[in-house]
């Protein structure tokens, strides 16, 4: 998405290598890292100073080296409900993901495995989607959740689960069809089945589809 609008980014990451890497990727895609900080209090201050288009933050940061970044992101969203935040985590923690999504009214928020940055184009897309108000959930989170025993989900076929996982990442029907090498019509049929099996009435609104996944994430 090289044609996307340039974003002003505040970046929070305590590892110097990682910070440089993230800055390089964001810059390569035409965005501007207005400030890169290394701990949670500095992140809050930087947001007040710069009023960025998006915050990209690591979970584990000083001062406590636990989940300061996540706490800071949630706190920032309380103060600035429209501020898009993308949280990067070293590990997939469904608990953290659920907490983040639950506290941000399910918009303009993302939770990704930190390693995803190495697929630079996908990562840049993700940043952009979140900045535009979308939701990005790491496929690993979905994989974990789909592994759980939940009766409505047990009714889904493996293919329907795959489709649901892709839906959760905000992909369009066309993108899902491409990813699974099936026809868009087949995807549409799968989605109708999923929504029916999850007791959600079919709806044309793409955003509602993601909400279906979110309902499931929060439960």
């Amino acid at each position, binding site marked *: 998405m090289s044609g996307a609008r340039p974003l002003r980014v505040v970046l929070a990451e305590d590892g110097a*290598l990682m910070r440089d890497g993230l800055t390089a990727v964001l810059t390569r895609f035409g965005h501007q890292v207005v400030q890169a900080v290394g701990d949670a209090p500095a992140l809050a201050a930087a947001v007040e100073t710069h009023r960025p288009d998006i915050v990209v933050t690591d979970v584990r940061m000083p001062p406590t080296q636990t989940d300061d970044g996540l706490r800071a992101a949630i706190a920032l969203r309380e103060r600035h409900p429209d501020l898009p935040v993308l949280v990067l985590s070293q590990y997939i923690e469904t608990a953290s993901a659920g907490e983040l999504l639950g506290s941000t009214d399910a918009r303009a928020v993302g939770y990704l495995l930190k390693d995803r940055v190495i697929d630079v184009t996908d990562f840049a897309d993700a940043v952009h989607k979140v900045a535009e108000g979308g939701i990005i959930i790491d496929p690993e989170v979905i994989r974990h959740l789909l592994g*759980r*025993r939940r009766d409505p989900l047990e009714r889904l076929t493996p293919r329907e689960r795959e489709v649901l996982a892709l839906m959760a990442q905000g992909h369009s029907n066309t993108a899902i069809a491409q990813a699974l090498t099936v026809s868009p019509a087949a995807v549409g049929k799968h989605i109708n089945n999923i929504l029916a099996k999850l007791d959600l009435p079919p709806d044309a609104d793409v955003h509602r589809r993601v909400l279906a996944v979110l309902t499931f994430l929060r439960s």
Partner: protein
Amino acid sequence: MEVITALRRRGFLASAWPWRSLAYLVTSSVPGALVLTIVAAVLIVGGTLASALVGLPMLAALAFAGVPVAAFERWRLRLVDPEPVADPHRVPDGPGVGTWLATRVREPATWRELGFTVLLATVLWPMDLAVAAAGAALPVTLLTAWMPVLSGGRRGLGPGLAIHSPAQALAALPAGIILLAAGAYLITAAAAGRAALTRRLLSPRPDEAARLLAEVTGSRARLVNAFEAERRRIERDLHDGAQQRLVAIATSLGLALLDLPPGPAADHVAHAHRQSRLALTELRELIHGIHPQVLTQHGLAAAVQDAADRSPLPVDLALELTGRLPAPVEATGYFIVCEALANIARHSDADRAWITVGHRAGTLLLEIGDDGVGGADPAGGSGLTGLSDRLAVIGGVLTLSSPPGGPTVLKVELPCPEPVPSASSSPKTAP
């Protein structure tokens, strides 16, 4: 079997016990005579040089003579008593002779052993030797009387008492045999008495034994905690070091790919990029196995949920646990759950598993079950034995029920205080 029990058995005379008892009594003279000689030497030398620098330390060193003598006596006791006697001394506070002396001088056991040594050197060893002589030497003298008599000599038995003629020597044989049997009983009974005395005087007093046990438990707990701290450190180092660097490399490769025209160079970079992605995935799994961050940050319930998510089998969860527990309890509980889930996936042939976690009356209860084939053997390299040490350190109990045909249920009870409401996300330190 103890020597005193052996005494009442049939076939006692043909057993090794009389011989062991004899050896026990005779070897008593080794420390006895040695101590007596050394004491005499030190008293003479040290006494005459009392004013000199050599004399006084030598005399003072005698106060500790009981320690090696008692150690030797406890070791020698094994001749007649298979149950070892524990060392009543504690480990010195630090290295060096000075620390050793300072520790020993304050222990009652040191003075008890000194008293025993005095008793050994003055009374016990001559007595032991006398009994051995009476029990063994007299019958042997009678039994071998014919040897000097045949060559025209005589065998003296005591003042004014001797065997002269072959007839007397012949009559001495049955008397010798009877006395030999009696001697075996005498020697063994004496050895048993002597062993009981030694054990009584040289074993740890109840308070000393309790302290020793506490020391061992404490040091084991320290080991396990150090082990746990080390795992966390390794996890942090890998995360802050290798993982960051690998992400940086892979990101650079990803960026390079954007600008490279299609061709061999782009192919190589793409290959390197794929490889680095695989390496990152492997490294992430490795770090997770060392000490999962979810455990550190969110506690046992979240970590059990995470382990269940990773299991290839569907796992039903009943997690009645909120808040944080002491870090060693959380780590032990988590690793037991992981091990159990791995075993279920590997051996049970189960369709599903279930885990319940609850806290009741100062005890954390974990239950992991499956609907598989059963017949799990806790000793059969299940990996659970490896966890029993950690479990024992925090006073936990593990029971496994796995009848053939299933179901297999593993129950773990860990003593632990009430969970702390998780206002703070950081774990508590060891209690």
